[in-house]
């Protein structure tokens, strides 16, 4: 072996890899032919090359293939299943949808719980009003002559719309008024609305013939509205019975406790007939030509006898409503207006009958509707009598007509209120009315506004404070009680039935907050309470002692 180093030896790798320039390559090739050492080096390189080429492959582990396949399958599986749409997009979309669903469902659950959770369930509001509007729309075009009624009282209840004054719309609405919207507020609001929107030429006329036929009594019961706009009235008759039938049909979907049946309407007609006569005898009201009056469910008066065209006020509406057992028409209903051509006489009755038989030291029962907070007229039972007195104001129980007011033309109604109110017993309540009227700038008013026969309001005093009462209400979960509002130490509760009221009273007796005698007097033996009539209970509570 030649151990001698050659200068060309370092060029051997370049020569073997072919990177020598042509000139260098030729010189190197010429050299190796004569240099044995270089030839030996080249042989070593070739041997190394052969060694590398003969290197055996290392056997890959058996797990490698399995791992690769598993990795590939797991990575590609979603794409194979879902096809075109990338799986991540679908997942993100599904997440977004799920989040949205959770939000929506959560919102509804939250709302439902808020609606159901309150200890004292609020009274329903919209049902009656909505239904009333539906019925009114359906009946607004009733013009056909009425067939003879089977029932005499119904036969009297036919509406004839032909008269001197024009009439354009006749409405029928049959539903019980919403509890949370007392008639007083409703009437005032409606009248105020009319005062704003209607011009002086738009008048509402009560048909003379209808008055004679006492149809307005039925109209009150059915809640019809006769509206005139200064055009001649067509002489047409409308059967109230038909109206009732139609209304009963229309209200067939109304829950039982909300329905006004034909029977109750008919009975209301007869009651209205009686009260109508009393009304004519007891109250006269005069209204200015600019003042539009709103009449409640029914007003019965004969304008031709008085010689004036009659403006029937909301007070008269209330009066008429108070004279009937029929729940009064809702807020948008029962409006009868007439053009004023001079002194107007409206006759109405406000029967007030203190019942001396009841325990005068325990509770007070009135037929007035609780005032609305909007009108800032809280119930002032103490002004009627001492907090522990009893006074029942009920149409059927009334013995005398006690209110009479007279309003001069174009004068301030507030002054007339003060001058003409003769019923001292109701002075406090009337003062409330005055307050509310001032608040709403409504002038046409008499004391009858404070009456509302639609519900019986019972005022009691319980020997307890607010919290125990609320706890008791919690326990009385089987009955429906609506807490209408809280005024000072008083809670105004609404009951949908007499049974619920009696349960409440029994519970109060059990807790010795109320005597059994009083409980029976204002509950079980209370003639003012009738089935189907809404009840409100003003509970005067003891003051909570501050620690």
């Amino acid at each position, binding site marked *: 072996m030649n151990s001698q180093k050659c200068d060309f030896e*370092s060029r051997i790798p370049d020569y*073997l*890899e072919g990177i020598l320039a042509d000139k260098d390559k030729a010189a190197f090739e010429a050299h190796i032919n004569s240099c044995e050492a270089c030839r030996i080096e080249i042989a070593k390189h070739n041997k190394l090359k052969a060694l*590398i*080429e003969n*290197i055996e492959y*290392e056997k890959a582990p058996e797990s490698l*293939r399995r791992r690769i396949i598993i990795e590939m399958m797991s990575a590609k599986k979603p794409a194979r299943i879902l096809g075109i749409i990338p799986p991540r997009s679908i997942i993100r979309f599904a997440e977004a949808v799920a989040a949205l669903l959770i939000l929506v469902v959560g919102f509804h659950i939250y709302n439902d719980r808020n609606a159901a959770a309150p200890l004292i369930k609020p009274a329903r509001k919209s049902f009656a009003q909505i239904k009333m509007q539906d019925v009114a729309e359906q009946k607004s075009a009733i013009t056909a002559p009425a067939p003879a009624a089977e029932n005499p009282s119904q036969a009297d209840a036919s509406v004839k719309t032909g008269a001197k004054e024009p009439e354009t719309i006749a409405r029928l609405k049959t539903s019980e008024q919403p509890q949370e919207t007392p008639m007083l507020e409703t009437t005032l609001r409606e009248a105020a609305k009319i005062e704003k929107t209607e011009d002086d030429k738009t008048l509402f006329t009560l048909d003379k013939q209808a008055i004679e036929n006492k149809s307005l009594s039925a109209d009150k019961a059915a809640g019809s509205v006769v509206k005139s706009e200064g055009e001649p009235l067509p002489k047409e008759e409308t059967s109230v019975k038909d109206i009732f039938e139609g209304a009963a049909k229309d209200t067939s979907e109304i829950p039982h406790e909300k329905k006004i049946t034909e029977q109750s309407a008919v009975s209301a007609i007869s009651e209205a007939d009686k009260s109508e006569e009393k009304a004519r005898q007891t109250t006269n009201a005069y209204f200015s030509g600019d003042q539009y009056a709103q009449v409640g469910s029914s007003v019965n008066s004969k304008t031709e006898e008085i010689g004036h065209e009659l403006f029937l006020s909301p007070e008269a509406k209330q009066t008429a409503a108070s004279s009937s057992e029929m729940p009064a028409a809702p807020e948008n209903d029962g409006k009868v207006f007439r053009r004023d051509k001079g002194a107007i006489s409206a006759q109405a009755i406000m029967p007030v009958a203190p019942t001396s038989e009841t325990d005068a030291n325990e509770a007070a029962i009135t037929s007035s509707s609780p005032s609305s907070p909007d009108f800032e007229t809280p119930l002032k039972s103490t002004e009627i009598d001492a907090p522990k007195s009893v006074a029942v104001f009920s149409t059927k129980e009334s013995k005398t007509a006690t209110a009479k007011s007279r309003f001069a033309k174009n004068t301030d109604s507030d002054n007339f209120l003060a001058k003409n109110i003769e019923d001292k017993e109701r002075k406090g309540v009337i003062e409330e009315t005055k307050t509310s009227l001032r608040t709403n700038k409504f002038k046409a008013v008499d004391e009858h506004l404070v009456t509302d026969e639609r519900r019986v309001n019972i005022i009691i005093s319980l020997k307890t404070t607010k919290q125990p009462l609320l706890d008791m209400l919690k326990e009385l979960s089987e009955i429906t009680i609506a807490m209408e509002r809280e005024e000072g130490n008083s809670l105004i509760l609404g009951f949908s039935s007499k049974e619920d009221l009696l349960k409440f009273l029994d519970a109060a007796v059990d807790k010795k907050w109320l005597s059994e005698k009083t409980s029976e007097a204002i509950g079980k033996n209370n003639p003012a309470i009738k089935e189907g009539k809404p009840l409100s209970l003003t509970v005067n509570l003891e003051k909570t002692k501050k620690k």
Partner: protein
Amino acid sequence: MFLILLAGLLSHDAEKELVSRSKKNDSKAMEELILNYQDRIYSFILRLVSDADDAEDIAQDVFVKFFNTLQGFKGECSVKSWLFKIASNEVKNFWKSRAVKKSRKTQSLFVQSPDTAEEEELPIPSQAKSPREAATETELAARLNSAMLALPVEFKEALLLRFQEQLSYEEIAAALEINIGTVKSRLARAREELKKLMEPYL
């Protein structure tokens, strides 16, 4: 076994057919491709990283990446060169990550400078044995393996791709993403370094 033998004899058309089926997620075709190249790739990686577990992990990544990028494989090069290109990149990434985790003075392409490489103590075959005694076939292979381990990665991969895998300069250039001249010079330097290491046994 039959599959392995068959895979080793895969013609260009057969390989094309396997690639086509693999693009359609045919697991059988994919498996055949794996069988055909897994030993080569694994061995190549093992010689570069010198650790069986690391080699297996890297080999798995190579094949997974290969199948994932198969849709973009247009057939401009062979599957083998494509696979070695991926393997070379994966090994580089491996050493990069390893260099960050642990400084390695030896065998790292990215840490080792030419000067320091010369100063490093290379695994010289024991002088106790005469070259003649060690110059058996098995011994030479063992010595070669040891010498190969001492070579820089870039030299090793060039030598392996050139002599073991019989890739052309163009294919090596494509696989290593270098130009052909660099391949040749790198091979020349690799030869020279290896010959120095193997000198006592040649």
